[in-house]
């Protein structure tokens, strides 16, 4: 019982990644694929932050509530949080690029269906 919420966070994150991947593989509309990509992105970010989470501790910001001496036993790991912070911003920039390229490709082929975008095939 004591760690149920810990594992349910991981389950949520992994579930989001899987749902996103499934969407990327099976959907046809290019924007729907971009949305699924965003979902998978969110799931990966959750998983990363979860890997640095220690139950029962608090945020890694020093103020009146935690003392500077006992800090190593009071806060969660700041390193994954720092990575995720940059990853989120990159994620949205990549999504923007995805959407813009998708819009142009659909303009050229006349439909938003990825199966008809032959130029993007390899």
């Amino acid at each position, binding site marked *: 019982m004591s760690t149920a919420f810990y*594992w349910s966070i*991981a389950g949520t994150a992994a579930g989001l990644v899987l749902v996103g991947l499934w969407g990327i*593989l099976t959907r046809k509309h290019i924007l729907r694929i971009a949305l699924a990509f965003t979902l998978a992105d969110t799931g990966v970010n959750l998983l990363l932050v979860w890997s640095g989470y220690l139950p029962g501790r608090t945020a890694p910001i020093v103020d009146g509530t935690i003392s500077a001496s006992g800090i190593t036993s009071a806060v969660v*790991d700041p*390193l994954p949080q720092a990575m995720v*912070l940059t990853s989120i*911003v990159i994620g949205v920039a990549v999504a923007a690029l995805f959407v813009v390229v998708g819009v142009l490709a659909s303009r050229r082929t006349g439909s938003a269906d990825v199966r008809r975008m032959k130029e993007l095939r390899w």
Partner: protein
Amino acid sequence: MIRTLTGLIIVLVLGAVAAAVIPEMQMREELQGVGYSYVSRGMDDTGSSNLVTAVIVAYRGLDTLGEVVVLFCASTAVVLILTLYPIGIKASEPSRVVAFTAKVLPAPILLFGVYFIAHSHISPGGGFPGGTVIASVFLLVMLGSSSVPDGRGRLPAIESLAGLSFGLLGFWGIMTVGQFLNNAFLGTGTPGTIVSGGLIPLISIAIGAKVASEFSGVFKAFRNTGGTV
């Protein structure tokens, strides 16, 4: 049909892998390795109360510089593609209430953005969220009008200036103590006050300005190609 089936199989296999691997990650009770080192030394090394900002700006400052470059490339690509292949639809007029709100609310939201950037070393926030908050002010102004806001030529200037100052702040460290992006040579001050953390506030301002101008540039390119924004 075959597509759905293939996707389902791949996802099921990956799910099985995840179900096997994730429980192997034992729940930790203590900080270990590099995380422990950052937490135990962070306050003394950088003078920043917010250890996440300390990691982003000071310990992993070089990574952040690279990451800002990636962001720059992505936004430049978006703007470039949209400039090369313009697609135009006319935007509609907003209602009066929305137009008035778009005149009134930018000031306090800008203040929030500046607050998050300037207090990145004391409270949650930092260059990235502060920059996006400021960019969303630009978005609010665009939502409240049907025309393109001016500022042509100013956005790229701010963007280049911010990137340049990030680099120069790094080189300042080389000049004084022979280390790129060293932040402690200015003195770290008393943690928890606004003037502390050495270079961290300055670098946060540079990151914030860069993120804000890049996203604003993307939105401006969207607006220039017409459409709903």
